[in-house]
């Protein structure tokens, strides 16, 4: 049969809007639409769900009228958000009814990126993929499958991890850029803690944030904003004070009591400047430091050399006058902030925001975190708490691997994470792209992308684009056609989060852990499938031990089995109304614990209709004498850092180089001199800040930032958010660059005029917005716009500032939040 024109379809007809003209069985949406206007009964129910528009883990209560979701609200009994919700979550319903959602699997028929597709059935799509994967195993090269996942956690992550292991590839990685999914390495180095440490903001009396936009994003914005409310007027124990350090006046800075517009890249110096005052005036918590901390005073190492301690170095190098010169913050301000920070305990210094502050990122973070140590906030109510316990979920049956898988898994990961220059990283997405383009590296035959979109928002997207062209088979599993799915050979459309069973593990918030469950609020509107069930179908088609690794019939069954541990553990509670909760707490304090459910099916019914299980940790115990560090103490000068460096260097050594030379190379990759001693990091920081050079050809520094509305681009296709994109700037449906009025005046740029911002990496044309909330030499552009795909409201709107980012470090880490990029501006 000759192919008719009809079978070749543009990408538009793979979407909901294009499908109206399609033939064949009506999908659910069409049936629902046909029914509308009929005489209905208006039954109304509330279905628990989980917001997937950021990793915050808010519980949703979806109002469903006559089987149709009509509003997304916060789940009033969910411990993360207690009924509250952020604008992105509230607009989430618009993504369910997005006319540009994918409605059917498709395979590419035209050239890569040409956008010519043929609709196919799920069976055919999975058959194509499984046949290809099967041939990789037949050829004994299972490691040439790479799976790249985006922002998700819980069972979906465990399923892919298990699939990769059973299949035999070490190349499963995540493109995570957001806290808490990607905790900073500080906890690992100083506490020996792999889990993210938690911050008890609601109970704090002083919060000192170093560029952490905790009211616009970060871990769980709604939970943090609730804490902010608690900290403000009217609470028992008085109003907390908030100081925000950042070159630009973010929303978090504007909400603080004091904004310190620090010179970019000198945050760590300011932190140690504050530490200097605290040390000099002996305002630190001596008791805590004596009992728990290593590296505060100098010591003599096993080599007989004397190391200066933290105290000595900070007192020596960070006098207020010098720090003031470097950071641009007045010396009096440094003195008064330091005193208040030390005296208004419990106090918290927030460091971790996104992926990288700048080149010497790790030292900056350690410097900031040392303030928490000095004032004894570690483990204190209202301070910094150690990582939460993991959830008592059921383990899955043991994996039995065949010889093919075992051999595949023994091959080194392609991204080089954990070794060489990447010895501090656990995954480097960029590494996969580099490996694909490297002729000497083992080839990648199949790349599966699940909610990962490397062709958007990354400074290295061109590298990924070239790499995708080289990969013989690219598969995209997503709900909309994003930038990357245009390059895919096979498109597998996924259910929207309101259409599927969901699960979420929340272990990164102070005081509790939670396991959330979301039920489908409506049946799938189109011919889509649940991501986890696609894994099951693939495994089944591949057969053998891979199939045996997934004994579950459906995602729901897998979820139900996994949750059994929550019931069996006898710990925690299914969330319930405030009055029940109160009674339970009273009983618990008196030592009673009434078993609430007679059987697991009762427990399951309760958790899946209320939305979550949770376990509280209170009161906090200050028995922290066991840190998982080499010394068993909290290490102000981490030994682990040097140890990891030595290990990485010795692995790199080949015939021609010595350990010393390799170490030098790794140190340079960390942004310090090749002969630097990491145990002297407080000295290195001030030296590197001093060495920052000005560049006359690029006189300005570009800071990119994330808006609470469209975030890293996930909200860009929600029209309500586009229309109310920001409050500090009139920027609806567009991008803009924020310029200080003095700077703009000098350049003769008026508010609203088009300007060209240029860096060594490229140039962008966009509207100028004058804003006094920034340092004169710093300009700022929000991320999240500048899509070339992703639906009608996201596409061709504004710019993506990652096009300007030059830093290699930031490029490797993700969305260019890192080191400010040097730019110049001219009238457009």
């Amino acid at each position, binding site marked *: 049969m000759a192919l008719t024109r009809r079978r070749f379809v543009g990408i538009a007809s793979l979407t909901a809007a294009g499908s109206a003209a399609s033939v064949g069985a009506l999908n659910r949406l069409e049936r629902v639409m046909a029914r509308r206007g*009929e*005489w209905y*009964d*208006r039954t109304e129910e509330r279905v628990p769900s989980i917001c997937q528009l950021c990793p915050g883990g808010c519980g949703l209560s979806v109002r469903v009228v006559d089987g149709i979701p009509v509003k997304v609200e916060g789940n009033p009994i969910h411990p993360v958000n207690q009924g509250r919700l952020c604008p992105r979550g509230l607009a989430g319903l618009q993504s369910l009814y997005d006319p540009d959602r994918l409605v059917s699997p498709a395979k590419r028929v035209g050239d890569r990126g040409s956008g010519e597709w043929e609709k196919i059935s799920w069976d055919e799509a999975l058959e194509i993929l499984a046949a290809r994967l099967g041939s990789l195993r037949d050829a004994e090269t299972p490691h040439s499958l790479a799976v790249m996942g985006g922002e998700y956690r819980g069972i979906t992550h465990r399923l892919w991890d298990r699939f990769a292991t059973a299949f035999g590839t070490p190349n499963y990685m995540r493109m995570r850029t957001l806290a808490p999914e990607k905790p900073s390495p500080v906890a690992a180095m100083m506490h020996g803690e792999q889990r993210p440490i938690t911050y008890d903001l609601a109970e704090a009396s002083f919060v000192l944030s170093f560029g952490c936009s905790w009211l616009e994003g970060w871990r769980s914005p709604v939970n943090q904003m609730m804490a902010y409310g608690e900290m403000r007027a009217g609470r028992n124990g008085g109003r907390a004070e908030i100081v925000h350090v950042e070159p630009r006046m973010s929303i978090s800075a504007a909400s603080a009591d004091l904004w310190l517009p620090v010179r970019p890249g000198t945050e760590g110096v300011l932190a140690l400047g504050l530490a200097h005052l605290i040390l000099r005036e002996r305002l630190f918590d001596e008791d805590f430091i004596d009992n728990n901390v290593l590296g505060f005073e100098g010591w003599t190492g096993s080599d007989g050399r004397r190391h200066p301690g933290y105290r000595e170095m900070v007192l020596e190098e960070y006098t207020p006058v010098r720090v003031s010169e470097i950071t641009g913050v007045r010396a009096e301000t440094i003195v008064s902030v330091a005193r208040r920070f030390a005296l208004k305990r419990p106090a918290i210094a927030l460091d971790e925001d996104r992926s990288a502050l700048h080149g010497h990122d790790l030292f900056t973070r350690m410097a900031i975190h040392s303030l928490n140590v000095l004032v004894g906030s570690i483990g204190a109510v209202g301070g910094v708490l150690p990582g939460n316990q993991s959830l008592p979920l059921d383990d899955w049956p043991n994996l039995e691997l065949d010889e093919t898988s075992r051999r595949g898994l023994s091959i080194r990961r392609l991204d080089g994470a954990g070794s060489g220059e990447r010895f501090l990283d656990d995954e480097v997405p960029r590494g996969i792209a580099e490996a694909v383009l490297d002729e000497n590296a083992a080839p990648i035959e199949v790349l599966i992308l699940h909610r990962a979109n490397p062709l958007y928002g990354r400074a290295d997207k061109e590298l990924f684009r070239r790499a995708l062209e080289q990969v013989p088979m690219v598969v995209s599993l997503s709900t909309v056609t994003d930038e990357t799915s245009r390059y895919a050979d096979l498109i597998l459309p996924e259910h929207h989060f309101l259409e599927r069973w969901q699960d979420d593990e929340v272990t990164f918030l102070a005081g509790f852990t939670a396991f959330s469950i979301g039920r489908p609020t409506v049946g799938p509107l189109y011919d889509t499938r649940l991501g986890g069930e696609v894994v099951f179908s693939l495994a089944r088609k591949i057969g053998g031990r891979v199939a045996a690794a997934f004994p579950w019939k459906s995602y729901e069954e897998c979820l139900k089995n996994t949750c059994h541990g929550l019931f069996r553990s006898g710990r925690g509670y299914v969330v319930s109304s405030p009055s029940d909760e109160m009674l339970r707490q009273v009983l618990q304090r008196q030592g009673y614990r009434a078993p609430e459910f007679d059987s697991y099916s009762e427990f399951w019914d309760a958790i899946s209709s209320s939305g979550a299980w949770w376990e509280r940790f209170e009161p906090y115990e200050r028995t922290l004498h066991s840190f998982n560090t080499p010394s068993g103490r909290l290490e102000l000068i981490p030994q682990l850092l040097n140890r990891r460096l030595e290990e990485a260097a010795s692995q790199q050594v080949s015939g021609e180089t010595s350990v010393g030379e390799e170490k030098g190379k790794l140190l340079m990759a960390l942004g310090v001199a090749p002969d630097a001693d990491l145990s002297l990091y407080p000295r290195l920081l001030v030296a590197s800040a001093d060495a920052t050079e000005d560049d006359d050809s690029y006189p300005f520094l570009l800071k990119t930032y994330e808006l609470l509305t469209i975030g890293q681009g996930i909200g860009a296709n929600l029209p309500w958010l586009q229309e109310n994109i920001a409050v500090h700037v009139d920027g609806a449906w567009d991008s803009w660059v924020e310029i200080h009025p003095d700077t703009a005046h000098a350049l003769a740029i008026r508010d609203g005029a088009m300007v060209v911002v240029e860096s060594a990496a490229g140039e962008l044309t966009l509207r100028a917005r004058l804003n006094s909330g920034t340092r004169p030499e710093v300009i700022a552009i929000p991320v999240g716009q500048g899509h070339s795909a992703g639906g009608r409201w996201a596409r061709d709107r504004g710019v993506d500032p990652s096009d300007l980012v030059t830093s290699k470090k930031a490029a490797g880490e993700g969305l260019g939040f890192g080191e400010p990029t040097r730019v110049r501006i001219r009238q457009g």
Partner: protein
Amino acid sequence: MKAIGISRAARRGCAAGLLLVSGCWQGSTTQPIQFNHLLHMEEVGLECTDCHRYVKRAEFAGRPTVDICAECHEELLTDSAQEAILVEYIQADEAIPWERLYEVPDHVYYSHRRHVAVAKIDCDVCHGKIGRSDRPPQRPLQRLTMDFCLVCHEQQGASTDCNACHR
């Protein structure tokens, strides 16, 4: 502070406007089954609420679903051709595409529960003698205009504030 009442003339003007936009009242309505209200009420002895189950419980009276019909009509009870159509729907478990006869515009909040369960208004007052009809009427037996609502509200001493019903 007292809400200012609306003059009757203004009210009429408004009601006339309402009629113009509610086109469905002008046309005639044909139902998929020639349901006989009279027979069900007089001979079988059913109450309105036996089939319109939400009348006293919710804003909406509720369209009888096939399940309700199936409680009696699982199989043919008579040799009526109309009943045969019904049984087909029941056996196919398909919703009967009843045409809506009475409808208030979406900017009016109307609650059956409030009017029937609380104020004890008879169904007849708004729906006319539909319970005594032996075939579905082609148009509403009582025209529901704002004037009609307000006359009753005034007689009963119910609120005549616009905001009490409009949304």
